[in-house]
C-alpha cells in the first residue's frame, strides 16, 4: 500500500504526518494505535520536513544535525556557560597591565589569582571571546539558524497558505481544545454556522467557509515571527563577519599632548589636541549636599581637537600637507565624527612632565642668573640661545633613562618617565662645558665650571587619549537587530488562533489551536459557546 496516498485521495510527500488536504493523521491506519496517542504534533502542521525524511548522504546528516532544535539549544547552552566562564576573571583587555608582553600577562594572572589564575591563563580563557573555539560556536549557531529556518519555513508556508477547512474528524479530535455536542442536541447547522461566523468576524477573525464547516483564523503572520527574528540574527552575524574585511573596521588609539598634532595610524588623518580639560561638579550644581570626603565628581573630560587630512598621503616620502577637515570639542558620549571616522574621548594622563626648566647661572658673577633654559621632553631643540652669547646644545637625550647591560645609557620607552639629557654650554668667550641632567640633579664634567643649571619647576601638560574607530558594518548590525526585534515582537505579542466549527454525523464539533496563550483562546471559545447557546463542553488536553 502506498503510505503517501491518503484515503481522501490526496497524495502526500514522504514524511507527511497530517494529510495536507483532509488533516487525517497519515500513519494512523498503519500503527493501529488509538487516535489520541497517534495524533502528531501540530507544530509544523504535520508537514514533511527534509530533516525528518532523509538521512542517507553526508549532506543529509549535516543538514539533520543543524536543523535539530535540540542541537540548537545545546549550542546556546554551551555558549552561555562559556560566556560565564569568561567573566570569572577579567579578560586580557581589561587587566591593569600597561605594556603587556605575554610574560607580563601570564604573571598577572598567576600573581593576582593564584593557581586558578594560572590554569585560567593556560587554558586561554583570558582571551576566551576571541578564541577559535568560541568563534566556531558562534559560526555553528549561525549555521543552525539558517538550516533550522529553511527546514521548517518552507513546509510551514505551504501548509498555512492552504487553510485547513473541512478537515477529517480525527484532525479536529486531535486538537488540544476540542468539544462536541450530543447527537440529540437541537442545533440547526444552517443557522448555527453563519451565527458563529458573524460572532467571530466581529472578533477580528478571518473566515473560511464551506457548507458544513467553518474555519476562523487570526494573526497568521505571527507564525512567521520566529523565522523573521532568525533572519535578523543572521544579518547581525553577517555584519559581525563583515568587520574582518580590510577597510571595514579600524581601531586605533593615540595619546596626544596639548598642542601636539599626531598622525592616526592606517589613515591619512592627523589629529591635534588644542587643549584638554577636566571639569568637576560644583557643589551648587548638585541636587543635594554630599559628603565626598574631599573627593570630587568629574563633570567633563574634554579635548578641543582639530582633525586634518594629509593631502600627500598617497605620495610615498612626500612631506605631509595638512588640511583642516573638522574642528571642535570631543567629549565622552559625544565623539567627533568626520565621514565614517569617529574619534572618542577615551583616556587622560594629567600633570605629566612636559618640559624641564632651568635657570642658567654664571658662577663667576656670583651665581647671577644670566638666562633660562627650557627642554621640551617630546621634541627638544638641538640648540638654543639662552642669553647673549651663550648657547646650549643637546648632545644626547634619553626620555626613559636606564643604564644598559653594556654599560651605556639607554631608554626603556619613548615616554619621558625618567628623562636624561647630556648638554653642552658654549659661550662666545670660548667656554665649552658638558653637563648631564638626570633624576633632578645636574652634574658638570668640569671641576670648576663657569656655568651651572638650577632646576626650576617643570612644565606639566595633559595628555589626552583618543580612540579612533571606523566601523562600516554598524548599519548592517543595527538593521539585523531591528529585523530581530520585529520578528520577536510578531512572534510573542500576537498569537495565531484558529477555531474550527464543523457539523458532521449529526454533531457539532468545535476545535481550537493556537501557538500560545491557550488561556485566551479558551476564553474566546467559551464565550462563543455561551453566546451561541450550544450544549458543548470544551476539553483541554494536557499537551501543548
Amino acid at each position, binding site marked *: 500500500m502506498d503510505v503517501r496516498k491518503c484515503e481522501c485521495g490526496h497524495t502526500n510527500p514522504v514524511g507527511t504526518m497530517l494529510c495536507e488536504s483532509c488533516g487525517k493523521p497519515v500513519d494512523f491506519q498503519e500503527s493501529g494505535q488509538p487516535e489520541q496517542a497517534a495524533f502528531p504534533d501540530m507544530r509544523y502542521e504535520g508537514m514533511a520536513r527534509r530533516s525528518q525524511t532523509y538521512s542517507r548522504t553526508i549532506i543529509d546528516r549535516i543538514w539533520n544535525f543543524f536543523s535539530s532544535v535540540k542541537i540548537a539549544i545545546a549550542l546556546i547552552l554551551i555558549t552561555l556557560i562559556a560566556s560565564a566562564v569568561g567573566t570569572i576573571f577579567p579578560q586580557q583587555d581589561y587587566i591593569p597591565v600597561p605594556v603587556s608582553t605575554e610574560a607580563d600577562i601570564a604573571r598577572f594572572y598567576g600573581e593576582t589569582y593564584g593557581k586558578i589564575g594560572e590554569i585560567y591563563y593556560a587554558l586561554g580563557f583570558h582571551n576566551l571571546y576571541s578564541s577559535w573555539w568560541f568563534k566556531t560556536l558562534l559560526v555553528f549557531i549561525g549555521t543552525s539558524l539558517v538550516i533550522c529556518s529553511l527546514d521548517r519555513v518552507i513546509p510551514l508556508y505551504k501548509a498555512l497558505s492552504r487553510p485547513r477547512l473541512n478537515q477529517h474528524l480525527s484532525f479536529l479530535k486531535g486538537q488540544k481544545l476540542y468539544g462536541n455536542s450530543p447527537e440529540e442536541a437541537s442545533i440547526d447547522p444552517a443557522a448555527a454556522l453563519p451565527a458563529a461566523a458573524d460572532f467571530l468576524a466581529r472578533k477580528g477573525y478571518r473566515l473560511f467557509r464551506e457548507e458544513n464547516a467553518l474555519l476562523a483564523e487570526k494573526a497568521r503572520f505571527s507564525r512567521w515571527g520566529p523565522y523573521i527574528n532568525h533572519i535578523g540574527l543572521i544579518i547581525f552575524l553577517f555584519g559581525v563577519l563583515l568587520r574582518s574585511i580590510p577597510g571595514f573596521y579600524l581601531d586605533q588609539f593615540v595619546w596626544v599632548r596639548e598642542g601636539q598634532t599626531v598622525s592616526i595610524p592606517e589613515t591619512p588623518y592627523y589629529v591635534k589636541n588644542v587643549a584638554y580639560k577636566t571639569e568637576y561638579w560644583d557643589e551648587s550644581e548638585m541636587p543635594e549636599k554630599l559628603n565626598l570626603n574631599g573627593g570630587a565628581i568629574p563633570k567633563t573630560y574634554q579635548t578641543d581637537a582639530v582633525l586634518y587630512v594629509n593631502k600627500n598621503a598617497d605620495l610615498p616620502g612626500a612631506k605631509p600637507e595638512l588640511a583642516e577637515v573638522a574642528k571642535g570639542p570631543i567629549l565622552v558620549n559625544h565623539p567627533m565624527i568626520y565621514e565614517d571616522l569617529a574619534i572618542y574621548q577615551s583616556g587622560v594622563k594629567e600633570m605629566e612632565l612636559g618640559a624641564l626648566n632651568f635657570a642658567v647661572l654664571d658662577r663667576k658673577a656670583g651665581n647671577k642668573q644670566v638666562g633660562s633654559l627650557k627642554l621640551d621632553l617630546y621634541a627638544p631643540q638641538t640648540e638654543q640661545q639662552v642669553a647673549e652669547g651663550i648657547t646650549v646644545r643637546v648632545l644626547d637625550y634619553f626620555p626613559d633613562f636606564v643604564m644598559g647591560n653594556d654599560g651605556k645609557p639607554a631608554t626603556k620607552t619613548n615616554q619621558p618617565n625618567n628623562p636624561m639629557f647630556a648638554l653642552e654650554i658654549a659661550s662666545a668667550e670660548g667656554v665649552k662645558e658638558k653637563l648631564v641632567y638626570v633624576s633632578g640633579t645636574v652634574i658638570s664634567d668640569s671641576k670648576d665650571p663657569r656655568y651651572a643649571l638650577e632646576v626650576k619647576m617643570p612644565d606639566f601638560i595633559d595628555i589626552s587619549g583618543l580612540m579612533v574607530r571606523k566601523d562600516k558594518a554598524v548599519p548592517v548590525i543595527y538593521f539585523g537587530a531591528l529585523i530581530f526585534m520585529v520578528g520577536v515582537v510578531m512572534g510573542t505579542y500576537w498569537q495565531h488562533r484558529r477555531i474550527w466549527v464543523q457539523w458532521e454525523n449529526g454533531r457539532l464539533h468545535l476545535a481550537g489551536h493556537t501557538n500560545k496563550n491557550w*488561556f485566551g483562546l479558551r476564553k474566546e471559545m467559551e464565550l462563543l459557546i455561551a453566546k451561541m447557546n450550544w450544549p458543548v463542553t470544551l476539553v483541554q488536553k494536557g499537551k501543548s
Partner: protein
Amino acid sequence: MITISNWLLNAAFILYVCSSILFVVAVTGKQWSGRDPREHERRFGGLAYILAVIGFLSHAGYIVTRWIASGHSPTSNMFEFMAFLDFCIIFAYLILYRIYRLTVLGAFVIPLGILMLGYAYVFPKEATPLIPALQSYWLQIHVTTAALGEGILSVGFAAGLMYLVRTVPQQGKSRANLWLEIVLSVVLMLVGFIVLDSTFSRLDQNTVFQLPTQQMTNTGQVVNQQVTYTLPAIVAPAGATIVKQGPMNPLMEAPTWMEGKDAARKLNTMIWSILSGLVLYGGLRLLVRKRLGAALQRTVEGIEPELLDEISYRAIAIGYPVFTLGALIFAMIWAEEAWGRFWGWDPKETWAFIVWLFYSAYLHLRLSRGWVGEKSAWMSVIGFVIILITLVVVNLVIAGLHSYAGV
C-alpha cells in the same frame, strides 16, 4: 524636592506592605468561620489591589520628583536602579493582573517587590550628579527599558514559583521539594540581609579598617584606604588594621586574591546574609512545623496549575523582547556612541547576553521540545537567579565598566 521624593518612596513601601498583608489574608482567610470564600477573596483581594495601585502611583511620584530634582532619570546608581526595577516589577504585575485577574498573583509578586525595594534601601540614597560616562540620553532609554524587561521577567519567575508551590508534592521527600526549600531559604537570606543592614546602619556600630593599599585624594595627598563595615566584622580585609573597634572582633582575614577595597566587606556581608537567612528559615520551620513549601501551598490551593504555567510563560514572552531591546540593542547603540564599540565583552554586557541566551533556550525548549509545567517553572526560577547575578553580583563582585559608585 529630594525630601518629597524620599517620602513618596517610603509611602509606596508602606502601601506595598499593607497590600501584601491583605493579599495573604485574601487567599488564606477563605476558610475563616462564617465567610463566603468567594466574597472574602473578592473583598480583600480588591482592597489589596487598590492599595498596590496607590503604592504604584506614589512610587511613580517618587520617580518624577527625583527626576526633576536631579535633572536625570533616577537610574544612575544602585539605589535608584533597584527602586526603578521594583517599579517595573509592580508595573508588570498590574498589567498581568489586568489580563488574568488572579488574586493570588499579588500575594507573591508584591512581597517580591517589597524585597527588591528593601534591597534598594541598603544602598546610599544620595542623588549624585552624573559622571561624564553617564551623560547621555541613552542612560534614560537603555536603563529604563532594560529594567522594564527584567521586571516583567521577574513576574514570570513569581508565577513559575507559584506553579512549583502549587504542584510539587509535599508528601514524602523528593529532589523537587528540597530545591524548592533551597529557593525559599535564599529568598530569606535576602530578607535577613536587608533587615540586618538597615538595623545596623541605624545602630551606628561601624567597624573601620585601614588597608595597606594607598590612594591619592583630590588634594594630592597619598593616604591609606579605609573601609567601613556597617555589619559586625566576621572577616577582616587582608592585612588591615582596625581604626575603630566595632561590636565584635573579626574571626578571620579575607583571602588576598579578592579584588578591590570593598571585597572583604562584601564577603562579610554575604556571610551574615547566609547566617541570618538560615536562622529565619529555621525559625519559620519551627513555627509552622512543616516545609515552607507545604505551608505556602495553602495559598495557591484550588488554582489550575495550567493557568500559573501560562502566566509565567506569558510574562516571559512579553518580557523577552523588552529585555532584548533595552539590555542588548539599546546597550549596543549607547556603547557604540560612548566607547566606539557596540560590544566589548565587559562582564555586565556578557551577563546580559547570558540572560538573553538563557531565555532564548527557555523559549526554544518550550516551543519546540514541549517543556511546559514543572520544567518550564524551574527554568523561570533559574532565569531570575541569572538576572540577579547580572544586576547584583556583577556590579558588586566583578569590577567592570558598569560598576556603580558608592557600593
